[in-house]
């Protein structure tokens, strides 16, 4: 009984974290058609930045998370302006450069923070456990659910309710037409790339009290982000939100109930779903 409830709550928590990670990936891919394989590195870098702000300067958790997000967003901006900008439509060059940068980031992190894992304490207000019915559950993980929902709502409001959002939607649907209508698509690209990178960096810091920070965190997380985005369908916020929860549930229940198949619980359903619906569960069929 407890097991079921625990797994359910944890599925939602993990889903929330995955949403923070993958929303940016989805937006970037949806608007710019760039498969950003640096996304896992952004996540790891955000975690390292945030943790270091805390360790070296005593910056408080949430502030550290925000500064880390800004730093990673700035890095993303530089990457977009000086590298990806030149590569519009060149899928192969994009794969090469995003993977190349992820190699560099991984090795730089190893140089700066050595290989020792770093643990980050949850903010004091959220330490300890909360009783959910008969279940004891860490308060911080429950807070992640709320945070993810809040950010989902904020993003949705941004995309659906502001002019910037309207421009982004126009850019996703038909970049050429958007350009003709006088939308500065290039600036839009930079904004979206910064936003996506910043979200990943933020997610890294938010995830660090659960996952801890270690070399290899990037490659552990990147496939999860890919699975979410592919299942949910690219370019759709609702898709990545639902995809995150689907992955959260698959991951938790699959590994707990079918431990013998632990290696396959993510990728087997992914193959089945993609073969059945190549555009993902919630994606639109490509024109």
């Amino acid at each position: 009984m407890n097991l079921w409830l625990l797994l359910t709550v944890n599925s939602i928590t993990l889903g929330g974290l995955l949403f923070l990670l993958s929303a940016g990936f989805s937006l970037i891919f949806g608007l710019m058609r760039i498969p950003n394989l640096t996304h896992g590195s952004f996540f790891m870098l955000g975690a390292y930045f945030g943790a270091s702000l805390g360790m070296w300067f005593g910056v408080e958790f949430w502030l550290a998370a925000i500064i880390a997000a800004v730093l990673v967003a700035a890095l993303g901006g530089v990457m977009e302006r000086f590298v990806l900008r030149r590569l519009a439509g060149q899928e192969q060059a994009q794969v090469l450069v995003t993977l190349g940068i992820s190699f560099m980031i991984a090795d730089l992190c190893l140089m700066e923070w050595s290989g020792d894992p770093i643990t980050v304490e949850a903010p004091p207000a959220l330490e300890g456990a909360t009783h959910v019915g008969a279940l004891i559950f860490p308060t911080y993980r429950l807070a992640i659910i709320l945070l993810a929902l809040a950010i989902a709502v904020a993003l949705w409001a941004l995309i659906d309710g502001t002019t910037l959002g309207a421009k982004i939607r126009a850019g996703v649907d038909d970049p050429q037409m958007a350009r003709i209508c006088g939308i500065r698509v290039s600036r839009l690209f930079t904004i979206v790339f910064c936003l996506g990178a910043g979200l990943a960096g933020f997610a890294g810091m938010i995830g660090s009290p659960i996952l801890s920070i270690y070399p290899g965190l990037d490659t552990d997380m990147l496939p999860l982000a890919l699975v979410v985005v592919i299942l949910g369908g690219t370019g759709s916020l609702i898709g990545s939100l639902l995809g995150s929860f689907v992955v959260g549930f698959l991951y938790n229940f699959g590994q707990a109930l079918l431990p013998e198949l632990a290696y396959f619980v993510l990728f087997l359903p992914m193959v089945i779903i993609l073969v059945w619906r190549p555009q993902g569960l919630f994606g639109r069929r490509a024109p």
Partner: protein
Amino acid sequence: MKRIAIGIAILLLAAVPLWVGGSFYVNIVSQVLIAAIFALGLDILVGYGGLISLGHAGLFGVAAYTVAVMLGAGFGHVAAIVAAIALTLAATAVFGVLALRTTGIGFIMITLALGQLLWGLAYRWIDLTHGDNGLSGNSRPAPFGISLDPTNHFYYATLIVFLLVIAAVALLTGSPFGASLRGTRDQPRRMAALGFDVWKIRFLACLFSGFCSGIAGILFFYYNEFISPHALALSASAEVLLMVIAGGSATLLGPIAGATLVVVMKSVMSAYIERWNFTLGAIFVLIVLFMPEGLVPGSRRLSRWLWATLKALRGGTATPAESQR
């Protein structure tokens, strides 16, 4: 001109054990050739077919594991190699049937997931694969009574296979099939309207790339006399893809240049450059910045440009810098 260049290249390769300086380097060249076979096959799909795969290390692994398991079960080399190729082709067919329901990012993701499943299988099917401990083999084949155990013999065997593969790739890409494959990459709808079976063309390309992955996997197993799940990991699939793209996709020499770059960085330069991983990443970024089409086409473009500039200079059009002197 071109024939002379090819002749010189083959001579240089044939003489590798004489000039490369020691068995360690001969082995490195063998590794480059194996990686190049793998990359050349993948390029048929990625470069000529426009379908990016992130799962080919899985196919590579199927071949290597089949040889290891067959030899372990007491079969001979011929049986093991034939079985490895057959199984790899079968696995590739499954890849193709499932992944070719879509193109673009969908294709990347299905191949990625299938590759991860094979990787998981290698880890988890312990009775067969011994999990992460891997499988060792302790014999290389001896075609025509010549043992491949000595470093140089193995190198020559690999070189012969490599030359056969590159010849096959050259024939394939130059054939009408190659032209129609490029057609499906650039204008799939028009090709379909012209009556070509786009799916079938792509499927055949997929099979050929899987075949090359299988050949490379077999050579890899005989070279290392060891196989473990690491060779099937996502990072291995990404690595061979990077070779193709960095060298220049849809060219014959590109994948070879890419394979050379990656193997030399990993295996030779890593002894001198402590942060070789960072350096390799930086080289990829530089390639993209200055030669986004890849090393081989990029250097061709640069040399043409250089040639033209030189010619213009010799033609007497003085540059501003010269006229000031």
